[in-house]
């Protein structure tokens, strides 16, 4: 969610909401950039943009090219990651970065 009032009031509201039900706890993180599922949301002075989120713990690694998978697998890995890049990046710049990331992941693999 986005919030236009002060951070203090938001924290207050969320803490109140945490008391409503003993089994429902709200976990929150307040900052300019937020990961949500596989998307990294950035708020750049009111302009929201998205790009692909890579977990810091997950190493960029795919099935090695010499592995005995049927050959379409390798092509599909690239196609899917490109599709995902297009889906989740909202700017051309983000897409280009993601393309570079994919290329490096494939080249450095293993």
């Amino acid at each position, binding site marked *: 969610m986005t919030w236009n009032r002060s951070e203090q009031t938001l924290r207050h509201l969320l803490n109140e909401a945490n008391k409503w039900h003993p089994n429902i706890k709200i976990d929150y993180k307040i900052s300019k950039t937020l990961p949500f599922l596989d998307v990294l949301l950035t708020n750049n002075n009111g302009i929201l943009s998205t790009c692909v989120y890579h977990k810091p713990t997950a190493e960029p690694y795919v099935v090695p090219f010499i592995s005995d998978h049927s050959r379409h697998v390798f092509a599909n890995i*690239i196609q899917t990651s490109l599709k995902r890049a297009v*889906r989740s990046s909202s700017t051309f710049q983000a897409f280009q970065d993601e393309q570079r990331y994919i290329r490096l992941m494939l080249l450095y693999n293993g």
Partner: protein
Amino acid sequence: MNIICSSFSYPSSFIDQQFRKFSLEYLSSSSFLPLIDNEKQYFLLHHKIIGQPTIQQSQVAMSITTATGNIDFDQLNSIEEMESIGSNKKSTKKPYGNKILFHYTHEKRFQSFKRDMHTIYEDTFKNICATEVKIMVGNRNRPDAKHELIRKKPKREILQNKPNESKYF
């Protein structure tokens, strides 16, 4: 930057080929260089791909269409859950008029099941003005048994109708 090319890494010619294939697939081939290199092209592509359902979405749609006819069989074993399903059914199934249809997978131990369901239904909904609603309990065959008896050839001793031997001798 020096790139270490281990045997696990993908050959760059292959990567280039796939990148080109991707952009060719989604862009009109009017552009001379088939690589996405300007913002306008990118937004066209972005809109095209966003419009398509993801694999998860199409899988969910598939499973919904296959599951609408079937009730979840695991739940039918306890009668309390049956009742909750029954109350759901009443609200959703309009084309059957004033009837509630139940289906359960038949097993030998469920022989009194149909009768039980009727008595439970009458006991619980006696006071509420739902008396005009009829309940119907149907059974279906266990898929395993069906498979065993129809699709696969059963063992000979299952098929043979054995006479009760030497009972009266």
